[in-house]
């Protein structure tokens, strides 16, 4: 296995990319996605893989400078494990072989010799100029290398100017074992980038898209909104507080002096490679009109229920409708399980008419570890949910 070095993605891929496979990072113009390839290369070098980089758009010195800037890694320190075929190689092959068919054979010979001589495990290719020079089929043919009885893993970054048609073609032709497309939302302000796991040959993972942000040249998967809702006094604010690295509470005292959420609680956390924003809703019925707005564009819902108060289940069903949980993943946090109760998982499932794949976790929101377990469960649901 090799890893991308991007925590959430490697976990979604089942701890990484199998050896000998073909990987495509397809980038829409303007999307800041170079770190996907660079992070994978950096990770491979750090794990002592022997790598070949083919980068026809740049000199090796510029490439070194870029890696140094982005990852603080000097590829000159890996001279025994890394070979770079840069723009000067492309230029000399163009001079030597003006006819593309001959050039493909020259490229192929050069790549094979380099792989054999340097015992290369992984070939990283910046593909779009090769695609332009040689076309798709010939470009693939020059990379179809077998050394002894094994094929090196091939990782391509491609500037996709043809959009989804090209991705459909790649998927239909089974040209790759893993296709990750990188796109951006641009309406009209640059909003966020997102990647889509389009296809994997080694698992039945559903196609899914996750936004990502880049902080200090590191990719963090981004869940812009998780809703925490539930009946009054079920423990939502405590849940948000325990889940968050930092946050704002909307609790105010009511006429009897008890704290209740009047607008929303807001929390942020960085968790297992994901940056997540959590919105805690008010539980009082008088705030129901704002709940659909709060739930709008949410990627998942944590429904907090109080296991000591089964009579609140009708209210929970109302909240499930308001939050439109039939369209997005939901996890049940069965809170206050440290208090005496006799509400079982089956009773909760029957009462709320839940599908078998909706997780129910018995927790105490006072325990951070319990709360984090629920968040982890919801993140897993989000990354495997066929939106």
């Amino acid at each position, binding site marked *: 296995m090799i890893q991308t070095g991007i925590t959430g993605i490697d976990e979604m891929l089942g701890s990484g990319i199998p050896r000998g496979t073909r990987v495509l990072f397809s980038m829409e113009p303007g*999307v800041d996605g170079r770190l996907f390839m660079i992070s994978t290369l950096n990770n491979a070098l750090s794990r002592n893989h022997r790598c070949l980089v083919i980068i026809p758009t740049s*000199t090796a010195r*510029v490439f070194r400078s870029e890696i140094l800037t982005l990852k603080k890694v000097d590829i000159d320190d890996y001279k025994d494990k890394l070979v770079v075929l840069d723009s000067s190689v492309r230029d000399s092959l163009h001079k030597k072989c003006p006819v593309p068919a001959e050039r493909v054979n020259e490229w192929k010979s050069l790549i094979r010799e380099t792989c054999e001589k340097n015992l290369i495990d992984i070939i990283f290719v910046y593909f*779009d100029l090769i695609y*332009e020079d040689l076309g798709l089929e010939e470009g693939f043919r020059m990379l179809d290398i077998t050394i002894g009885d094994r094929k090196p893993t091939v990782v391509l970054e491609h500037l996709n*100017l043809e959009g989804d048609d090209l991705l459909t073609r790649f998927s239909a032709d089974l040209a790759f074992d893993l296709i990750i497309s990188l796109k951006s939302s*641009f309406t*009209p*302000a640059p909003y966020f980038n997102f990647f889509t796991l389009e296809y994997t040959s080694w698992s039945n993972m559903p196609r899914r898209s996750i936004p990502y942000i880049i902080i200090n040249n590191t990719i963090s998967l981004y869940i812009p909104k998780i809703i925490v809702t539930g009946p009054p006094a079920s423990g939502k604010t405590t849940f948000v507080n325990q889940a968050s690295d930092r946050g704002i509470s909307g609790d105010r005292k009511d006429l009897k002096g008890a704290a209740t959420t009047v607008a929303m609680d807001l929390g942020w956390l960085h968790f297992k490679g994901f940056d997540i924003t959590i919105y805690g809703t008010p539980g009082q019925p008088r705030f129901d009109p704002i709940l659909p707005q709060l739930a709008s564009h949410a990627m998942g819902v944590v429904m907090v229920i109080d296991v000591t108060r089964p009579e609140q289940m009708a209210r929970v069903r109302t909240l499930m409708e308001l939050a439109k949980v039939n369209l997005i993943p939901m996890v049940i946090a069965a809170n206050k399980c440290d208090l005496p109760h006799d509400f079982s998982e089956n009773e909760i499932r029957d009462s709320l008419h839940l599908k078998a794949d909706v997780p129910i976790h018995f927790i105490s929101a006072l325990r951070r570890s319990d709360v984090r377990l629920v968040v982890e469960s919801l993140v897993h649901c989000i990354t495997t949910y066929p939106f």
Partner: protein
Amino acid sequence: MYTYKTGIALIDDVTGGLGPGMNILILAPPLSGADTLGACIARPGTGEYSIIISTEERSIDMANRFSAENLNRNHIGIIDAITKMSSPEASDSVHVKFVASPSDLTGIGIKFSQIVESIFNGEFEVSADVDLFPPPIRFYINSLSTLLMYRKLEVLYQFLHVLGAKLKKMEGFGVYILNNESFDEKTVAVMKQLMNVVIEVKVESDGHYLRIRGLSGVSGDWYKFRIENGEVVIGK
């Protein structure tokens, strides 16, 4: 609707300025001063910003020229596609980004988005008296001729088509220079498909001339022009 003044009275007096999402192509022979004309059209007005892709002039030379012309450098972002070929260690700043070479369309696209994001995030200077949303952005490529030396016509067309769609969404305005003597008619015709307005430039013994194509109500005659202090002056 926001309108962009071109600084060319022939256009501005009739149209009041060009609308967002419009693209101007300057078709000009070599040594005709087209880059100076392009720079005039692309210079940011009050409250505006400019993003320049330079394949001809190093960003440091460009910045020095801006200072000499009293241009507000704090409202200009440059994507420099040539410096790294001689100075690989050149590093990015908020206002100046470098790509490996003019063939690096991936890098050009990324740096374009980074500068746009910086402008939207308020990392560029914001005019105290004019705060518009979306911030008006002029996008200037000097020149398409160099990009066509490095990439095939159909690839560059597709790239500009996607970038142009983003520019339109953010209500920007594009200015592009193409040397019409170095490329065949097909190439010029394909590039024109991406444009709304074409300004043709020619040099005669008595000076420089321009004519405007593609704008109804604007004369298509040749007019003599000169650049004075960064302003386009139309003469007889």
